Each structure stands twice: as structure tokens, then as C-alpha cells.
């Protein structure tokens, strides 16, 4: 079906040459980057230096336009209307499933389940596959790097079933100990669920190797790709993931949309997650039958507008090129790392080789919370605290860190602004 001709936002970067990465043109695509912060009568604002991309990324014009366009011109409910707009919206929304499948190199669009976010995607697997499969005496393997989103859903099922949770340790750089991992796998191990990229340390885990070791023993593996998918290309077939989850809002898309990739046989074996409209084949009070995956797991009206926004985000990223984005981010990481390391009293936490563009650090005599608040006065937005990864912080003997996480629109000047802010904070507390 034809899209409304008014509904075709100009792709700002059609045909952008891969080299050089034109950061100024990229920044033009993000309206929010033009704003000032801490602006008020009598005081000039500060340019926004947004280094909290690991928490959530800003949105390009293409995403904003796609969502507005959907609401202004193409909006209706999906999957259930015979009318023109419903068909148009359904086509647009379902096209995003194809895009996500290509983005992850999934074998088929049927492997892609839409969720609210990565957290819900993991909860979905825990509540369906986990509840049906895991029993007392079983073991599952997580890692010390996990975000709470890949710990707590398993603990909720653990409370019902009484299985044991084993934890892969990491070394002082934040690299997972694969020998220890291999030793944790045993006849009782039923699942491995680990992050593909640490939100605190930036460590990219060796997903293919993790999966290979598990698969040798017939154990399925779930990867939390929330951070990894943002910083590098991901191929779920190449790493041989059984499940792979990510969230839209960290990928320059909107909040409220996430993705669960699942291997076909596994999705087929999983019972529904929530009940309601759209996920059923037939309903009667005597008994109800459910649709095939992925729809079986998508009860109720889905996040239509958000899904369309995610599709636009993926288009945008593909236009820039994930390899180009990764290369650009690595220059920012190198700059920030080299300069922060030179500041006496500053220690970077997480130094894994090949890490993503995330720098966690602590500073002698200055609590991260104070550092973050003072840096913010200079316009530099970083995250401070435990980053929803308390066990990992405890592993490093820390109560909190400050974290700068770079995105595709950050500049070398912004990496320097971070360093200048850290120096100013150090001077403030001297």
C-alpha cells in the first residue's frame, strides 16, 4: 500500500559517504543537541554535552517525524481492521518486524517479538520458558556484569521453582573468566543468560564463544544486547544466540518498544506471556487457542507508534553505517580514556580490550554524585550511581561510579568537555 506522500521525511543522510564521518551533519539531525541547559533570565545557558547515552539516547529528526507522521496521517489500530488506515498502519508496523529481523540477521520476521523494552523481553522468557522448564535442583548461569534486568526476572522464577543461580566472575579489567564459565556448566545447567555488553564497564562479551560452550552441552543462551546492539553490528546467527533482547530507546528510537529475538523451536515451545486480544486464534469460554509466534507473545494493542519510531531509528543507523558509528565512537573513547587517565586521583573502572564507548570512573575524595551534579552545571550530563548493577559495583568494591557513555553524535570537543569538567570538579574539592 502506498504511503501518504506527505509522510516521507527527508532522510538527512541518504548517500552519506562512509568516510569521513561527518559529525556536524549528524548533529544537525538531532534537534535536542541545539538546546542549552541551565538557561534562565540573567544567565546564559550551557550547551548540552549529552554523555548519558547508555541510559537513553536522543532521537534524530527522522524518528520524531516518523512518529508524528504516523499520528497525523497513518494512524489506526493494527491487525484487525478492514478499513484503509488500519491496513496502512498494519503494513507500516509489520514492516518494522522485517527491518529488525534484517538488523539482527534473524532467519525470519517470525523470530522477532515486540515488547515494551529489554526488561520485558527477559521477563517474557523467564515467565514462559523459565517457568515451564526450570525446576528445583536445576542451575542457571548469569554473569557478574549483569544489569538488574537480567538478574531479578530470574530471581522471581527462582522463588517459585527453587533452582540455583551461578555467576560467571570477571577479572579486574571487567573481562569475563571463560575458564570459570566453562567450569560452571554442568549436567544441571539449564540456561545461560548473560549480557552482550556491560552498561557499566563497556565490556563486550565473547558471545559466540559463550554460546558455543553452552551449546556443546545442549544449554540455550540468552543475550542482553541493550548496550551491544547500539555500539556494533550484531548477527544473532553468527553468535548462535537462542534469545537476544534489546530496547529501542537506547538505539535512538522511542521509549516503550523493545525486541525479543527467539530461535524458532524455542518460541514455538513457549506458552503465552500475557493474555488478551491479538494473541489468540480463537476464544470461547470452553477453551482458547493461541496464535503462532511471534503474535502469541503480543497481547493487546501493541506499541504501534513506538514500533514505527524504532523502524525509523534502525533506518537512520543503517544509513550512517554501524561500522562507521563504532569507529567514530572508538575515537571518542580513546580520547576520553587517555585524558582521564592523566588526571591524578581519577581511576577508570573497566578496561576490557575492545570495549564499547562507555567510561566509568571514580575520583579520590569526590563522590560520584557530587561530581555528576557539578559537571551538570557545566552542561555535561553523565550518569552516577550503581547503574542498576549492584553486584558488579560490589565486585569492584565501589558504592558508585560516574559514567560517561558516548553516542553517535558526540564529538571530540565533548570528550574534552568531560575532562575539563572533571578537572574543575577536582579543583572545587581541593
Amino acid at each position: 500500500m502506498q504511503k501518504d506522500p506527505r509522510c516521507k521525511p527527508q532522510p538527512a543522510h541518504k548517500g552519506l559517504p562512509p568516510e569521513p564521518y561527518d559529525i556536524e551533519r549528524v548533529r544537525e539531525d538531532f534537534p535536542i543537541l541545539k538546546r542549552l541547559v541551565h538557561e534562565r533570565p540573567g544567565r546564559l545557558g550551557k550547551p548540552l554535552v549529552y554523555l548519558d547515552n547508555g541510559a537513553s539516547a536522543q532521537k534524530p529528526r527522522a524518528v520524531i517525524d516518523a512518529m508524528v507522521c504516523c499520528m497525523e496521517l497513518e494512524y489506526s489500530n493494527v491487525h484487525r481492521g478492514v478499513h484503509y488506515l488500519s491496513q496502512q498502519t498494519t503494513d507500516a508496523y509489520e514492516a518494522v518486524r522485517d527491518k529488525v529481523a534484517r538488523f539482527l540477521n534473524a532467519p525470519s520476521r517470525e523470530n522477532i517479538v515486540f515488547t515494551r523494552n529489554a526488561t520485558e523481553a527477559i521477563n517474557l522468557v523467564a515467565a514462559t520458558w523459565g517457568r515451564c522448564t526450570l525446576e528445583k535442583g536445576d542451575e542457571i548461569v548469569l554473569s557478574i556484569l549483569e544489569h538488574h534486568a537480567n538478574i531479578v526476572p530470574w530471581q522471581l522464577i527462582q522463588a517459585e521453582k527453587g533452582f540455583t543461580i551461578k555467576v560467571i566472575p570477571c577479572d579486574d579489567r571487567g573481562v569475563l573468566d571463560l575458564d570459570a564459565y566453562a567450569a560452571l556448566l554442568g549436567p544441571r545447567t539449564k540456561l545461560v543468560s548473560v549480557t552482550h555488553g556491560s552498561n557499566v564497564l563497556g565490556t563486550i562479551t565473547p558471545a559466540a564463544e559463550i554460546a558455543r560452550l553452552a551449546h556443546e552441552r545442549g544449554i540455550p543462551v540468552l543475550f542482553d544486547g541493550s548496550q551491544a546492539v547500539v555500539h556494533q553490528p550484531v548477527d544473532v546467527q553468527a553468535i548462535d544466540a537462542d534469545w537476544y533482547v534489546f530496547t529501542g530507546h537506547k538505539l535512538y528510537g522511542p521509549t516503550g518498544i523493545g525486541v525479543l529475538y527467539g530461535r524458532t523451536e524455542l518460541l514455538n515451545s513457549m506458552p503465552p506471556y500475557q493474555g488478551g486480544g491479538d494473541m489468540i486464534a480463537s476464544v470461547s469460554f470452553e477453551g482458547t487457542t493461541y496464535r503462532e509466534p511471534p503474535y502469541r507473545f503480543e497481547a493487546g494493542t501493541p506499541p504501534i507508534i513506538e514500533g514505527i519510531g524504532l523502524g525509523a531509528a534502525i533506518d537512520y543507523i543503517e544509513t550512517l553505517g554501524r561500522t562507521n558509528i563504532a569507529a567514530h565512537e572508538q575515537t571518542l573513547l580513546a580520547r576520553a580514556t587517555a585524558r582521564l587517565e592523566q588526571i591524578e586521583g581519577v581511576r577508570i573502572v573497566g578496561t576490557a580490550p575492545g570495549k564499547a564507548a562507555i567510561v566509568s570512573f571514580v575520583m579520590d575524595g569526590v563522590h560520584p554524585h557530587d561530581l555528576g551534579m557539578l559537571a551538570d552545571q557545566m552542561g555535561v550530563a553523565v550518569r552516577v550511581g550503581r547503574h542498576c548493577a549492584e553486584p558488579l559495583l560490589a565486585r569492584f568494591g565501589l558504592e558508585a561510579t560516574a559514567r560517561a557513555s558516548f553516542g553517535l553524535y558526540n564529538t571530540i570537543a565533548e570528550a574534552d568537555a568531560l575532562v575539563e569538567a572533571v578537572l574543575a570538579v577536582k579543583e572545587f574539592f581541593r
Partner: protein
Amino acid sequence: MVNDPFGDLRDLYQEVILDHGKHPRNHRHPPDANHEARGDNPLCGDRITVYLTIDTDGLIRDVAFEGRGCAISTASASLMTEVIRGKRESEARALFECFHDLCTKDDADIPDHGPVDEDALDRLRVLSGVREFPVRVKCATLAWHAMTAALAGSAKISTE
């Protein structure tokens, strides 16, 4: 300072706070403490434990704390230990009510809580800058919440 990048925050990070933040008073674990409670602020990673030594007649003979948080929470804990030592439990609670208002309300909106130690309250006024920064109110009141929790908890026999 004209070019002070932190101009807006000078009211919050006053010298007294920086001093108590860097050199907290009564930062120790008294062996004879008979009440204690932990304060935890997961948002920013502050974790402190407040220790009280309370006489049989309800007089707070000693107050101390352990753990570190941000400058605001550490300074607030340090100042608290100084102002509630020698107070009755009821006086310490009343002081917290006044202090909480100081951290959250404009002066004009602060209700009368009855007689309190005005000198103590004056010393705590240095923390009233958190009013402008709602996320920091939790930092300023963390030790006080732990202190009231310690008061509410049953007396513990120290094993040390």
C-alpha cells in the same frame, strides 16, 4: 567569582559542607552503641550506618556514623552527630522535623514545631540549599532517617 562554573551550586556546597564532607566528625563505631540503623540511598550509592548510645533515661549520650556518601550526605551526617548529642530522643525527633522542613520548604511555609534548640537549627541551616535540588534532599536527610530508625528499633546489646 565571575567565571565560576559552579556559581549556582555555591549555596549548596558551602564551606562548612565541604569541610564536614571531607572531614566528617564522629565517623566511628562506638563500642557501647546500643541502637543502630543503616541508611541506603541506592540512587547515588550512599550507604551509612548511624550508631546511638542511649542512657536508660532516654538521653542520647553518643552519636556516630560509619560509611561514606556524597559530600551532602556525609556533611549532614557529621553535623547531625554534633547537634543531637546530649539531646533526649523526643528532642532529636523534633529537630529532625524542623530540619526536614528546612530542606524542603520555603522559610515562610515552615510550620511551628514548638520549642526546639534554635542554635542547633541555625547550624543545620547551611544544608537548606538542597531545597533548590530535590534529588539531593534524600542525601541531606539520609542520616536523619537512619537516626530515627535507630531510635525506633529495639535496643541492641553490643557484643564488642
